[in-house]
């Protein structure tokens, strides 16, 4: 009995010391981590913001669209609203493509008020290195072909890769990843067309 109590006390003391160590490190790093996360978020939204004129804070305008929604992906989607002088300029959607090669692909799709793509950026994926991962903006300029495209150019039926009779390039040796991303962008544009008011009305309500 005595040894059990002793062991218990030892464990408790060590657990307390370890917790103190973690708590101390946390206090020392929390501020820097916050700054880093914010910087990373701003940097990753940048590809969809270039060329836009706006005067609003982007990261503060975040809105979560909980499932079920008509956007790609089954988890909550995130949208950032961008505006100039209180007039909507663009919406940046963070959605997931479900039918990639290995797990969900998180994609940032920027759409301006007129429904044209302002930029696409793959945020997170587990596609095959050297094949599917060329959808990353750092590895090839594949995602740039969507800039300025909308549901009029090409029409929704043209929103597919060339192998499937659409208008967009696939990647050599990889068609699953590009197909998933093209479909994701098209579905996001369709959602935006149907819910444009909602996306921006919510913004104005929150602003007031």
């Amino acid at each position: 009995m005595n040894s059990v109590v002793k062991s218990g006390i030892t464990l408790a003391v060590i657990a307390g010391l370890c917790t103190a160590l973690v708590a101390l490190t946390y206090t020392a790093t929390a501020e820097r981590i916050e700054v880093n996360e914010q910087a990373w978020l701003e940097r990753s939204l940048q590809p969809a913001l270039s060329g836009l004129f706006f005067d609003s804070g982007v990261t503060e305008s975040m809105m979560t669209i909980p499932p079920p929604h008509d956007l790609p992906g089954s988890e909550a989607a995130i949208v950032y609203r961008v505006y100039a002088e209180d007039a909507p300029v663009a919406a940046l959607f963070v959605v997931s493509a479900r039918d990639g090669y290995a797990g969900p692909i998180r994609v940032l799709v920027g759409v301006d008020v007129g429904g044209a793509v302002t930029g696409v950026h793959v945020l997170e994926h587990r596609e095959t290195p050297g094949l599917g991962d060329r959808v990353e903006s750092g590895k090839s300029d594949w995602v740039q072909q969507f800039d300025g495209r909308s549901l009029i150019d090409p029409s929704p039926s043209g929103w597919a890769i060339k192998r499937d009779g659409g208008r967009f390039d696939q990647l050599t040796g990889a068609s699953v990843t590009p197909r998933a991303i093209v479909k994701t962008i098209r579905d996001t544009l369709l959602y935006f067309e149907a819910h444009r008011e909602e996306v921006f009305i919510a913004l104005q309500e929150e602003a007031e």
Partner: protein
Amino acid sequence: MSASNFVDRFRNGLWYENPGLVQLLGLCPLLAVTSTFVNGLGLGVATLAVLIASNALVSATRRWIQPQIRIPIYVLIIASLVTCIELIFKAWFPALDRSLGIFIPLIVTNCAIVARAEVFASKNPVASSILDGFVMGSGFALLLMVIGLIRELVGHGSIMSRMDMLFGGEAMRGIVLTDGGWLLAILPPGAFFSLALAIALKNAIDERQKSATPRRSRR
């Protein structure tokens, strides 16, 4: 500790008892993250830091720890240290933290660390345990770097790209030899091939030394 003893400890950690090459411990992170040199270096340094700190703490508390509860205590100490290292990485090397992802927290499961706590630190004084953590961690980190270097060279055709993830500044492309390389090297099989080659090379060198020594003595 005498100087020759000191050198012996280093030779053991880096070569004869290398945790990765000889003891084959901690292979999961070794195989998973070594697709580039900077990833290998990052995880190597993180593991080294955890190993030194865990050896120091285990050794410092060894007198008060009853044998029957030593394993939960090692786990507690190692898990806390890894959490601290993860926070430090998130604060100072955010890009590297994103690149290594889950493998920083998974250092907890690296059996090389708990093995050194059990085999060495629980029986030896603090200074000696810190040295042990340092040499064993260095041996592991070096292996990670070598494998990362090989896989990056063959798979990406570059040497030491993205060192900015560790040292900050502009995105560095390193020494680029070709654009793209032999894909297999960065895929999981490439990790097994590289490790197998490294082990084979080490054995071949040992073999050669062994056969060279007696011949010399016979002459």
